[in-house]
């Protein structure tokens, strides 16, 4: 099923025309309404009049995650606060989150792209969908929520956690679809099995999974364990949230909603746009948003784009699996974690040496996150209680800043690598390349 056939199956040349018109309009908007963008364009010696085609986009400077932090909280808005009807935020590096403002129209766009996703998953007005993404500042919960309401489906606004109740309501309300992170889906699969309720009593047949990278192997496992079709839903808080892209029934790439979010693939080193089909860093320009349009936002996600028509009939460009990051950001249990965040916490705790090691692994499809730290010599105690209290305190501080709970491991003095130039601080044993 296709929600918006006109757009999703549009001839490529027509799509480019549409993107061109919208890009020009967006550049006008940011130039006249957002000071940081105007200044940057002036510094680069360009005005909106210089942007006449899609190719001209390369004249424009990039926007980075750092810009969103630097202009915290509202300086990147291109609409007055009176027009902003919603704020969302994602975790930032130093405790300050990244804030995104939506106008009424932006929320409509979000619902529209979300509707394309859930329709592509084969869902409609007769279907009950359990949304088990977190509700709140995180875009996952409310994003999926709006999408399901838009297609006329019935939402169970479950949010994350409370696993037993998740299973109970999924059963009693007859949910046919589940929207959550892929690792939570696998966790639920195990709980569902333990519940002893026969599978045939559940109506579940579809899953919309995203907010963290996942592999084809994980898809197969989810599909087998839950007995459903598992689809990717792609999104970034900075761009809009879940709904930037979606998989169709072919499960062969993630279609991007490119009439709203114009994608480019660049060389992360040089910033040059790479030829069609190349692997590189994904960059988005939002070409319809009003509240906080972003121009050439560097996602840091490494992937490739495929412009061939899909066998589902859609012409919308398809993004391949995300194969990694061009920066040091880790996505752990769906949460963005920068090693620098851990470092800032560790340096604040007087009992600790400023050295650490992050070990990330995926065991039974759940992310394991261990932070190894060294205690300063004077602070070792022979009382187990004190050492455990220290460990707890570190854990608590890290959770406060990162938004996820790490396993803290106290290690022996001088057992962690000392920085000689660039020390290796992260061991990520997960592989997303399968």
């Amino acid at each position, binding site marked *: 099923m296709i929600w918006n056939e006109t757009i999703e199956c549009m001839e490529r040349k027509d799509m480019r025309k549409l993107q061109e018109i919208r890009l020009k309009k967006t550049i006008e908007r940011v130039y006249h309404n957002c000071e940081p963008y105007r200044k940057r364009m002036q510094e680069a010696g360009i005005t909106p009049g210089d942007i006449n085609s899609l190719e001209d986009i390369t004249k424009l400077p990039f926007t980075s995650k750092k810009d969103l932090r630097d202009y915290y909280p509202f300086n990147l808005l291109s609409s007055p606060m009176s027009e902003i009807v919603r704020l969302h935020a994602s975790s930032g590096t130093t405790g300050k989150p990244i804030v995104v403002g939506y106008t009424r129209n932006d929320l409509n766009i979000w619902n529209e792209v979300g509707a394309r996703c859930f329709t592509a998953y084969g869902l409609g007005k007769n279907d009950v969908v359990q949304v088990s993404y977190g509700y709140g500042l995180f875009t996952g919960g409310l994003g999926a929520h709006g999408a399901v309401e838009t297609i006329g489906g019935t939402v169970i606004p479950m949010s994350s956690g409370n696993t037993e109740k998740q299973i109970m309501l999924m059963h009693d309300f007859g949910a046919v679809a589940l929207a959550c992170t892929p690792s939570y889906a696998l966790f639920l699969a195990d709980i569902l099995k333990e519940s002893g309720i026969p599978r045939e009593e559940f109506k579940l047949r579809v899953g919309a999974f995203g907010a963290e990278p996942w592999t084809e192997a994980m898809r197969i496992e989810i599909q087998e364990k839950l007995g459903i079709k598992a689809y990717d839903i792609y999104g970034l808080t900075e761009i809009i949230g879940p709904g930037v892209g979606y998989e169709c029934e072919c499960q062969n790439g993630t279609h991007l909603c490119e009439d709203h979010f114009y994608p480019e693939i660049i060389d992360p080193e040089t910033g040059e746009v790479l030829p069609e089909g190349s692997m590189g860093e994904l960059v988005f320009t939002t070409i319809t948003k009003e509240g906080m349009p972003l121009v050439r936002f560097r996602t840091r996600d490494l992937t490739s784009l495929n412009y061939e028509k899909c066998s589902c009939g859609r012409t919308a460009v398809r993004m391949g699996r995300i194969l990694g990051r061009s920066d040091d950001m880790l996505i752990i249990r769906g949460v963005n974690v920068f090693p620098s965040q851990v470092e800032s916490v560790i340096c604040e705790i007087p009992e600790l040496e400023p050295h650490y090691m992050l070990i990330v692994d995926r065991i039974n499809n759940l992310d394991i996150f261990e932070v190894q730290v060294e205690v300063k010599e004077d602070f070792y105690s*022979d009382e187990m209680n004190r050492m455990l209290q220290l460990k707890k305190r570190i854990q608590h501080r890290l959770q406060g800043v990162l938004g996820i709970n790490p396993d803290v491991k*106290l290690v*022996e003095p001088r057992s962690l690598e000392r920085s000689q130039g660039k020390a290796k601080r992260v061991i990520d044993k997960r592989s997303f390349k399968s």
Partner: protein
Amino acid sequence: MLIKQLSIFLENKKGRFTEIAKILGAAGINMTAFTVAENSDFGILRLLVSDPEKARDILKEYRYAVTMTDVVCLQCPDEPGALGKAMEIITEAGIFIEYMYAFTSGKGALIVLRPDNLEKCVDVLSKNKLILLAASEFYKL
């Protein structure tokens, strides 16, 4: 009356204790008693040796996290009820024991105590005519 105990922080890794035993052995230091408090990822080895200062310095050279703690060593008859009596005295004096461990030697049962108030503990036990092993005697065990 106070005896110096070494406490060594050890990760739960294969061979950590072996290394310590070998280092001390090579230095001619005898271990009199030890106990390990552990959880899932680390342990604290509490160790009584013939020459605590020397042992500490050597272990520090090997970059172990070593702390020195004062403990008392109660000598009590190796017979039923003896320990209960001693503990009753300690409890009634309002002293809390952080941890304790025991071993036997030619001098009968020896109980190593780490009370929250060392001075008071020594005082109470001496007043009640219980035998505390002197450091000089202890290191010769």
